[in-house]
């Protein structure tokens, strides 16, 4: 496990940068994580992150298909928000586990 400092707070992250303790998450932590990848989070990004956090809390397994049908953003839009990792990056910034689905 590695440690990182986001928004003045030291948090534990996995080798791939996912938060170990979900309670460490805040909007500010998310913003700094995204900034490391060169992404500035907008309100639309946060809407996606909120959706992912809700879904994970309800125990649902996440897929880009589900996000595409959420009414927040279509799949093309999701790729535009999180280039190169629509579900992987969004899950990381949402402070939830790395996606375990193949779709």
């Amino acid at each position, binding site marked *: 496990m590695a440690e990182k400092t986001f928004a003045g707070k030291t948090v534990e992250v996995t080798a791939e940068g996912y938060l170990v303790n979900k309670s460490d998450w805040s909007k500010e932590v998310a913003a700094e994580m995204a900034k490391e990848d060169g992404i500035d989070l907008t309100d639309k990004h946060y809407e996606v992150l909120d959706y992912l956090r809700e879904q994970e809390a309800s125990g649902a397994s996440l897929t*880009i298909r589900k996000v595409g049908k959420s009414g927040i953003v279509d*799949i093309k839009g999701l790729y535009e928000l999180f280039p190169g*990792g629509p579900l992987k990056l969004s899950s990381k910034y949402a402070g939830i586990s790395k996606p375990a689905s193949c779709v």
Partner: protein
Amino acid sequence: MTEVKETPLKKVMIIVAKANIEDVYAGLIMANGAVMEGIEAKLFFTFFGLDAITKKQMNKLHTATVGNPGMRMPNGWAFPTLLGAIPGVEAGVSAMMKKQMDELDVPPVDEFLDMITAGGGEIYACKMAADMFKLTKDDLCEHVKAIITVGDLYAMSGGDGTQIIFT
């Protein structure tokens, strides 16, 4: 000690030559998985694989219930070949497979192609096979970027970190 240098995968060229549900989906899942990881993906459909991008056939794919040793009854017994030959059995088994995939959020073929192209993946049809089956661009779904030759396919396969995958 020799140093092992890993070159990350940057592009996959995936060839689908068969029309069985499992063969087509193997290609679709790999292509979609690639674009989701930020890897460029191009799908090339040839021979019976063209069914997957032919408007009339794409959402009616079947799995083989005859001559398929992996086929089992729900209780795990081998699926008798003669049972698989009864009219309607193949359609029923195929429908069941699609239902099981839908439960895992694996979409129908047309929607899957929407997802792949939304992520920047590209879909191509093989010229020779299209000629052989007398299919034109109008017979193929709108996701198909072009009907190309094998030479065109190789020309697109350049670059470090490119792999050609035949499913």
